[in-house]
């Protein structure tokens, strides 16, 4: 409670009495209590000067020295003189000694009007004080209080401020605990005589009497029912919470486009540049650098890795075991394909590991007629095999007759077109969704059977077994005259078939234009449509059933056996294929005028015939002047190369114009532009070649299947006179071969034989690795072409020579009479020559100085 920096007026007396020992108050003139004498500094001596002394030293109060000018300098000698004069009476007597000791000449006398030091004057005793007080005279007034306050400040660290009472001392008084009266003291003790006496304790039940105990029972205090209406609570003054929001500019990505064009120079500017001197100099100087660099590149290719290239060649010389075609799987069905022959194999284009085969009876025509009832009971089938199940086929497609060849539609693998033995073309449609449940969930003993959807009309179709079926690619379609036009649907809609009845037919799976049909046909169609489908045949191609007519018939002069795919020579920009199921019934063959003809698709195709010929012709129909009908043109080229029917005509997957044909006892490789003959013709082998196919990964390699069940692997760059590898697959003849690539490590060759077994062989790395590059195979073919050309030329020249020699001989014969005369003449002539020779000899010898006659003379002389 005692705060040294403040003063409490009520306690002032007590405190000041305590403080006075420590604290020196600053003399405040406002304070009335002036009992306290301030402490006098040592170098100041307060003194009283009488009026006589004042007059003497001319320091009369309020006259010579005033409040404003309180300083008076007194001469030391004067003071001494005064002291001597008045001795003890002198006012300066108390300071006599100090004055005598004073060093300076003058002493300062200060008029203390306010009686600061208790007297009216004080004498400054030391020079320093004098200096201090006098200099500067202006600040002396301030110095004094400061000096004092300085002294006080060091004792009271904080400046004392008067305390203003706000009434809190009353509360403090209330709160403080004070004794209101003196504390009472009580001393309670027992009677002294009872100290130490024996005590008797008894028990008493507390509950006996009510006075035995005092309890405080609980009761509901009414006070607590009172609701506290007033309560002391603390509050804190805090700013209200303020919520604020900002809107940031949300940047989102946005496509920005800039279109720019490269800067180009005008012709004039280019001319200017080209003729400038600068460019000339630059070109000539730069040329030397380029020369070096280009020639360097030509001399040696420094980046060519010989080590890598070396290894490829090495592996080709690997052991025989490496080129073995391992059997991966073989499929036979005891029920359906035993004792039957497989006529065609096709891999499923989209589902990997699924292969379809068509099984046919091995019967000749007569046997068929005789056993026709049996044939009706066992309908011919196309079987679907999957790698996941080698024992049971996945699907059976029933066909109206033995299918010799079939093909999947490239744009929709659910459609299959097959060509039958009776000349009909059948189409089947598979539900893809139904099929996809099969790998895995297979119900035993129940192979699903699907029936064909539609067959072609018998009158308009082929008259002989259909030997080959091919789909046209989806880029173009053929119009009625055979002109390739743009295919607006971008799906495959057209099929080509051929048969030994000299026909190549083009079929369209879309419904023909209704205007072409007569009323009767339409009625028939309507009736057909209302027919029920007994076996759940999809209605997709119902409009074609039994009324399917070919679009174009191309007549050949020879029986046609197989034909070949047509590759479009310009890739048309592919628009998006229509997703989802295509309603074929809704598609219509468009009229020719609406479609744009495509110029750059070649209409030439190759056909192999039954007699072993290869025919190269166009399918465009030309107009026959006489009858006005559309007729097919004459074939451009015909070659008889094989001895028996041509069973394979295949294009190489690497080269667009190289074709392999297999037939009879040999095979041939053709180049489309070279129409003089095959560029490679194999020697006749001992067994018939039944089928051939190109390798899909190795240009220059192909496989030939033989009658004795052998497969020959031919590599054109390794050996051309014999196959590089022969392997026996089965004892029956090979009927069909198809290669397929499932993954980069799995290259398969599907081979079917006459027993009805389908073998899947795995092509080993040595055979599937492209040991030869395309360019080298190309070079080989070109070499062969040049050889062919050379042969032809030579034939011509030899023929010419022959005719020339014959002509000469003719000439000689006519001149027989003349030679007799000449012979006589020649004898005479030779004699004459001999004579002239002799004379010449003589002359020479004479000149040399040696002559026979002269020699004789000397011999004579001697």
């Amino acid at each position, binding site marked *: 409670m005692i705060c040294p920096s403040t003063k409490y007026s009520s306690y002032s007396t007590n405190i000041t009495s305590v403080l006075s020992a420590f604290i020196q108050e600053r003399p405040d003139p406002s304070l009335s209590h002036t009992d306290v004498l301030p402490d006098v500094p040592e170098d100041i001596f307060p003194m009283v000067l009488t009026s006589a002394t004042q007059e003497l030293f001319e320091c009369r109060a309020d006259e010579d020295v005033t409040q404003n000018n309180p300083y008076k300098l007194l001469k030391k000698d004067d003071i001494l003189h005064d002291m001597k004069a008045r001795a003890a009476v002198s006012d300066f007597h108390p300071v006599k000694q100090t004055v005598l000791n004073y060093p300076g000449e003058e002493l300062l006398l200060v008029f203390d009007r306010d009686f600061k030091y208790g007297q009216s004057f004080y004498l400054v005793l030391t020079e320093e004080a004098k200096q201090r007080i006098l200099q500067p005279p202006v600040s002396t007034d301030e110095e004094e209080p400061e000096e004092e306050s300085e002294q006080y400040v060091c004792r009271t660290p904080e400046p004392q401020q008067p305390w203003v009472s706000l009434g809190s001392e009353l509360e403090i008084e209330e709160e403080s605990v004070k004794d209101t009266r003196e504390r009472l003291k009580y001393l309670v003790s027992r009677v002294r005589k009872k100290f130490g006496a024996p005590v008797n304790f008894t028990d008493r039940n507390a509950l006996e009497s009510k006075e035995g105990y005092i309890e405080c029972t609980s009761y509901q205090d009414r006070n607590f029912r009172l609701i506290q209406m007033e309560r002391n609570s603390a509050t804190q003054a805090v700013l209200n919470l303020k919520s604020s929001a900002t809107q940031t500019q949300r940047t989102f990505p946005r496509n920005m486009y800039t279109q720019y064009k*490269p800067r180009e120079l005008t012709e004039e500017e280019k001319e200017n540049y080209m003729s400038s001197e600068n*460019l000339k100099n630059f070109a000539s100087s730069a*040329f030397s650098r380029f020369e070096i660099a280009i020639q360097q590149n*030509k001399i040696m290719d420094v980046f060519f890795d010989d080590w890598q290239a070396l290894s490829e060649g090495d592996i080709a010389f690997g052991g025989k075991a490496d080129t073995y075609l391992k059997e991966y799987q073989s499929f036979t069905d005891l029920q359906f394909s035993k004792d039957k022959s497989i006529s065609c194999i096709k891999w499923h284009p989209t589902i990997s590991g699924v292969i379809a085969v068509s099984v046919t009876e091995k019967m000749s025509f007569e046997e068929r007629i005789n056993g026709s009832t049996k044939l009706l009971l066992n309908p011919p089938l196309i079987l679907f095999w999957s790698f996941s199940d080698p024992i049971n086929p996945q699907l059976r497609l029933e066909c109206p007759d033995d299918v010799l060849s079939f093909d999947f539609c490239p744009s929709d693998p659910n459609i299959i077109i097959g060509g039958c033995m009776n000349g009909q073309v059948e189409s089947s449609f598979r539900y893809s969704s139904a099929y996809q449940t099969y790998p895995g969930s297979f119900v035993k003993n129940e192979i699903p059977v699907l029936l064909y959807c539609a067959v072609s009309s018998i009158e308009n179709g082929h008259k002989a077994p259909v030997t080959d079926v091919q789909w046209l690619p989806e880029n173009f379609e053929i119009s009625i005259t055979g002109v390739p036009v743009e295919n607006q649907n971008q799906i495959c809609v057209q099929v080509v078939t051929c048969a030994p009845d000299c026909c190549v037919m083009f079929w369209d799976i879309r419904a023909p234009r209704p205007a072409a049909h007569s009323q009767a046909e339409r009625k028939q169609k309507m009736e057909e449509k209302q027919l029920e489908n007994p076996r759940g045949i999809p209605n997709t191609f119902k409009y074609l059933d039994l009324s399917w007519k070919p679009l174009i018939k191309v007549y050949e002069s020879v029986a046609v056996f197989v034909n070949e795919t047509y590759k479009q020579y310009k890739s048309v920009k592919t628009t998006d294929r229509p997703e989802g199921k295509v309603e074929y019934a809704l598609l219509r063959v468009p009229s020719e005028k609406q479609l744009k003809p495509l110029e750059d698709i070649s209409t030439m195709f190759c056909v192999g015939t039954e007699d072993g010929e290869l025919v190269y012709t166009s399918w465009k129909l030309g107009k026959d002047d006489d009858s006005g009908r559309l007729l097919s043109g004459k074939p451009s080229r015909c070659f008889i190369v094989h001895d028996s029917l041509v069973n394979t005509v295949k294009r190489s997957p690497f080269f667009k114009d190289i074709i392999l044909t297999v037939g009879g006892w040999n095979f041939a490789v053709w180049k489309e532009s070279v129409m003089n003959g095959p560029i490679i013709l194999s020697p006749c082998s001992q067994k018939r070649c039944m089928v051939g196919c190109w390798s899909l990964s190795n240009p220059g390699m192909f496989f030939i299947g033989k009658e004795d069940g052998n497969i020959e692997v031919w590599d054109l760059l390794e050996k051309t006179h014999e196959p590089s590898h022969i392997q026996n697959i089965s004892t029956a003849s090979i009927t069909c071969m198809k290669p397929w690539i499932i993954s980069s490590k799995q290259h398969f060759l599907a081979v079917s034989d006459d027993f009805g077994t389908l073998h899947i062989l795995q092509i080993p790395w040595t055979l599937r690795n492209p040991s030869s590059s395309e360019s080298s195979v190309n070079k080989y073919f070109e070499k062969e072409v040049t050889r062919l050309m050379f042969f032809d030329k030579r034939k011509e020249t030899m023929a010419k020579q022959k005719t020339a020699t014959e002509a000469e001989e003719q000439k000689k014969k006519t001149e027989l009479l003349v030679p007799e005369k000449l012979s006589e003449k020649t004898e005479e002539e030779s004699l004459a020559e001999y004579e002239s020779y002799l004379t010449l000899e003589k002359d020479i010898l004479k000149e040399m100085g040696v002559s026979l006659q002269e020699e004789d003379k000397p011999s004579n002389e001697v």
Partner: protein
Amino acid sequence: MAEVEETLKRIQSQKGVQGIIIINAEGIPIKSTLDNSSTVQYAGLLHQLVMKTRSTVRDLDPQNDLTFLRVRSKKNEIMIAPDKDYFLIVIQNPSD
């Protein structure tokens, strides 16, 4: 002009040369043996490359300068001779 043409012909006649382009300092082609779109593409791209290369060489050593640039790729080799005002670009296929 004839001299320049003759030099170009001499380069073109070397084996494997696929094309020649002359571009000015800004990258605009002056003369070319290739078609327009390829020329413009080559000019634009190679001009930037040469600028970058030249600045790299000069940064490493200010006394140095780029004299010849050869870019070898799998299929061909592009050679560029820079100059103060022009660039001469030759594309060659070294392997055949």
